[in-house]
Every structure is written in structure tokens, then in C-alpha cells.
């Protein structure tokens, strides 16, 4: 919690105060404070990377990646994961009460950017007394934050792992987000963003937004394998508009469960932050300039079937890092799971991250897993 005397300066020019940031930590900070890892979550993620989400009761969204003995091994590293600015799980967002009015901010919250999210995290890290981070790691929008961290605070970031990410949101990405936002705003229960005060929720609009987005997270191949043209609980087509197909039923389920854990206005704010992201723009249009003289070790990763954040976008990052003569690894991983692959059980990804982190730990002079040290 940062009080009225500790404002957060936003890209929009507004100073946000008071503001708060909700976070979880895993593992133990070592005496030198050199083993801290910031994990950045994606659009609809949260701070519960490796612990049970109190809203859904499900295990953490990255519990395959983060935990004791996992690639980001909490026996060795101190992992911090914070809810993003504009989010809806404890960090200041549109559902937070505006101290000026006593009602939820709604659309009165200034539009936030990826850089604002990272600024907030940097304040948290500073608050925890940590000078440098051993690593900053994240996928999708989390990867955007990783790149922003490396560009804004190069001296604080020893290593960086942007996965299935991009240094800018493409026109196609913005287009999909706009469809989602329009679905929310077209819901009569959205009420110009004041639905909380009016005691309603735009669940239909938010569910449709999620359904449309969810399709972009998967690949044609994975959809085909999982659902094909299979019918849902029926032998024949009904000649109606029920969910005849399994894929329809699946998407409806995804939409319905999403609204239980996410706030519609947060969806507007966080998608907007992604749309506004264009790292090169901040550096006079030159992406290499964002990484000029960086000492950070990078590991860039993409997935073959990801068409939302395709390999070409990761290559753009790698080219810029090469042009800056940065220390960079780049791996494209074979997977048919689409953009969501970074959240799933993809052994090749785990092995790469494990190897990269171990190499970085050796370079940093902190004990890596498997070397007999305990934290």
C-alpha cells in the first residue's frame, strides 16, 4: 500500500495516489538479496503463480513452472509475482474505490500502460529492499513487461526471459482486443462502466470477449485434435442454435467461468495497456536503442503454432538485441498448442528455462539447483 505521499507517476501524466499492489512470494530471499525473480503474469493472470487461487480454488497458473524442484525452483530463488496495475485481484484497478468519490473508479481510473505496470512492480521490489533482480520472466503480456523491465531498469535486471511475447502489439492483436472490448461495452449491464455502483455485472459481454480471445490462444491444429467436429451430448445436429458442437460448449464454458474471476472494466484497461505497448516508440522508433549497452542476459522463446505472438515477433526482439550486441539466446519450441503453450506442460520449454537459469545463476555467482546448495 502506497499512501497519498507516494504517488505512482503514470504515462498518461496522472499521478496515482494512494495506490496498492497485491503480490505473492515463493521461496526465501538470500542474505545477499541476489536470488529474487519477478514473474510477470499475462492478460487474465494474477499473482497466484504457484499457489492456490482464492477465487477459483484452482492451483496457480504457472505451478508447472514455479515451485520446489520446478524450472523456476523456489528452493533456490525468491519468486515475486504481483497483480498488474489495472487488474482486479488486489492491485489498484477500475474496481478499486476512488478515494475522491468513495465509489469504484470505473472509467475514472487513468488508462495504464505496460510501463506503468512495471513502474509499480519496481516500486514493490524497491519496497522489499531488493536492488537487483536475478531474473524477470513472463509469457505473453508478461513477456511485454519483461522487455519493459529490461529497457527501463537495465541495471536491475540480471537476466530476462520473454516468452511468446512481442515488443509491440500488432494491428491484428489490437483488432482482437477491440472486438472483446466492444462486446463488453455493448452489454446493457455495463452501464458506462458504472455497473458495480448500479449493482449489476456485464457478464454476457465479458464472456463473449473471453470466448473470442480464447480462440486466439489456441491453434487450428489443437482445436481440431481436441474437438474436431464432434457433437456435444447429442447424436445429430439439432437444426438450432444450441451448442451442437463440442467446441461451442467448450467456449461457452470458458466464457462463463471467466466472468466469475475477472472484472469487465479490468479487461478493458489491461487490453488497452497491451494495445499501447510499442517499446521502440519510447526510444525514438529504434528497438535496438531500447537495449543499448545492456548487460542483461536474455532468453527469448516462441512456439511454432503461436499465431497471436508469432515467432517473427520474437525474432524482431532477437534482431534488436543482436544489434545491441546483447547476450541473447533464442529458442523456437515445437508445439501445436498455440499461444497458450507457455502455460502448459511443454517439457522442451521447461528444459530450456532450467538450462538458461542455471547458466545465469553460475554467471551471477549464486548456487543453482543441483549444486547441493539450499537457500
Amino acid at each position, binding site marked *: 500500500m502506497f499512501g497519498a505521499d507516494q504517488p505512482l507517476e503514470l504515462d498518461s501524466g496522472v499521478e496515482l495516489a494512494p495506490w496498492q499492489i497485491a503480490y505473492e512470494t515463493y521461496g526465501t530471499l538470500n542474505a545477499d538479496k541476489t536470488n529474487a525473480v519477478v514473474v510477470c503474469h499475462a492478460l487474465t493472470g494474477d499473482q497466484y503463480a504457484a499457489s492456490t487461487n482464492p477465487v477459483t480454488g484452482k492451483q496457480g497458473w504457472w505451478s508447472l513452472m514455479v515451485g520446489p524442484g520446478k524450472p523456476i525452483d523456489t528452493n533456490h530463488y525468491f519468486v515475486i509475482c504481483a497483480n498488474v496495475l489495472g487488474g482486479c485481484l488486489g492491485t489498484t484497478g477500475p474496481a478499486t474505490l476512488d478515494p475522491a468519490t468513495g465509489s469504484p473508479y470505473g472509467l475514472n481510473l487513468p488508462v495504464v500502460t505496460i510501463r506503468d505496470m512495471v513502474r509499480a512492480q519496481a516500486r514493490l521490489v524497491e519496497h522489499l529492499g531488493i536492488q537487483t533482480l536475478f531474473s524477470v520472466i513472463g509469457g505473453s503480456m508478461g513477456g511485454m513487461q519483461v522487455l519493459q523491465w529490461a529497457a527501463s531498469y537495465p541495471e536491475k535486471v540480471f537476466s530476462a526471459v520473454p516468452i511468446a511475447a512481442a515488443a509491440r502489439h500488432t494491428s491484428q492483436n489490437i483488432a482482437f482486443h477491440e472486438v472483446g472490448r466492444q462486446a463488453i461495452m455493448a452489454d446493457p449491464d455495463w452501464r458506462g462502466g458504472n455497473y458495480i455502483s448500479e449493482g449489476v455485472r456485464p457478464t454476457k459481454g465479458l464472456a463473449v470477449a473471453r470466448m473470442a480471445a480464447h480462440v486466439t490462444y489456441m491453434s487450428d491444429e489443437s482445436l481440431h485434435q481436441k474437438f474436431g467436429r464432434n457433437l456435444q451430448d447429442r447424436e445429430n445436429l439439432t437444426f438450432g442454435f444450441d451448442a451442437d458442437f463440442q467446441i461451442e460448449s467448450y467456449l461457452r464454458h470458458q466464457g462463463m467461468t471467466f466472468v466469475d474471476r475477472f472484472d469487465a472494466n479490468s479487461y478493458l484497461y489491461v487490453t488497452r495497456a497491451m494495445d499501447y505497448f510499442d517499446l521502440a516508440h519510447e526510444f525514438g522508433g529504434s528497438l535496438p536503442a531500447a537495449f543499448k549497452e545492456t548487460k542483461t542476459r536474455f532468453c527469448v522463446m516462441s512456439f511454432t503454432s503461436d499465431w497471436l505472438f508469432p515467432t517473427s515477433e520474437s525474432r524482431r526482439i*532477437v534482431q534488436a538485441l543482436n544489434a545491441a*550486441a546483447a*547476450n541473447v*539466446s533464442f529458442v523456437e519450441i515445437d508445439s501445436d498448442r498455440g499461444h497458450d503453450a507457455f502455460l502448459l506442460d511443454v517439457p522442451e520449454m521447461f*528444459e530450456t528455462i532450467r538450462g538458461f537459469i542455471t547458466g545465469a545463476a553460475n554467471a551471477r555467482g549464486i548456487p543453482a539447483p543441483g549444486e547441493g546448495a539450499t537457500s
Partner: protein
Amino acid sequence: MILDPNALLAGTVRGDHKVVASLIPQNARVLDVGSADGALLDLLVRERQVDGRGIELSKEGVNNCVARGLSAIQGDADTDLTDYPDQAFDVAILSQTLQATREPKKVMSELLRIGKQVVVSIPNFAHWRNRVQLLLRGRMPVTKYLPYEWYDTPNIHFCSLRDFVDLCKELDADVEKAVALSAQGNKIPINAPWWVWNIVAEQAVFLLKRD
């Protein structure tokens, strides 16, 4: 790495790798183009404490490199060297890869641009065994060291040691050091003029610097 590694394996560290390593200064910034599974980079990091990067065409090779803690990117020597700034590395290494590039001259020129020094190891196509096969049998040479048939070889631009030295001249590169090797990577311990090496050496390692 395009050659059959088994044909070259001499103990755990390949002979040509040992020779390359002997040419690299301690703590140098090194780019290994065609880093394969990272064996050479690993050796250089361990024995020369280099700040090393690799570029490798095969996805599997890159993943192996990164999983063993090395920095490597998936990329193509023919197209991706242009991304690097001038003199970005103390040494740029091209180990047994030149013959597999589409435009060897361009690749060499790029290496001389991005590396203050360049180390190149190449197979010598003018080795006597190859000459004999072509001359007496009238067939494209296939040896233990170069085990591919003409139709399935990834090695599309072979040269002799003399050809390579000529290319260096054309690119204004000084040959600061040259080491002739057998197929097993053992140094050929004779002082001989180029034309002898061009017959008896199966491979060679060159240390180059642009004038």
C-alpha cells in the same frame, strides 16, 4: 556443424576444437557461428572463460546449447550476421561451416566485419584422398571424414586450402596463423609450403584479421 561428428571424434574433445581453443584469448567475447550442440562453446567457456554466443541453424542444436547454459540463437549464417554491429566480438568463429553456406564470400566478409579476429576451420577438398577418388575412379569423393554422397551433402561450397587463402587475400584479410590437421584433428607436425599442406591436410584452422 555439418560433418559427421563420429568421423572426427578423437577422445572427448575434438582435435580441431582444441586447436581453435588455443587461438582464443582468455575472457574474449566470442561468437560461434554454426555452434551445433555447443561442444566448442562449452569448451571455450570452461577453458578460456569466454563470454560466448552461438548461432545455429538446427532448432535441436540451439535447444541443446541453451539447456546446457550456453547462449545461442537459432539463426542462419547466410542471413543473420548482418544484425550484429561492427567489431561486436573479439573473435568470430566459423567451425566447419563455411562449406555449407550459400554465399561463403559474403559470410566471410560479415565475419571479418563483426569480429576483431576471425577463426575459421574448413575441410580441405584438395586432400590427396579426394584427388585420387576423382582422378582414378572418376567419382565425387566420399571419405570417412566427408561421408556424404554428392546428392545428399549439405556441403555445397567446398574449397581447397589454397582457394581459401586466395579468398582471404581478396577480402583483405591477413592470415595470422594457420594450422593443418588430419581428419582426426591432430596437428600435422611439419613445416611445409602451402602446396604440401594442400595435399596432406584433411582440414585446417585459420586465424584471420582484416588489414
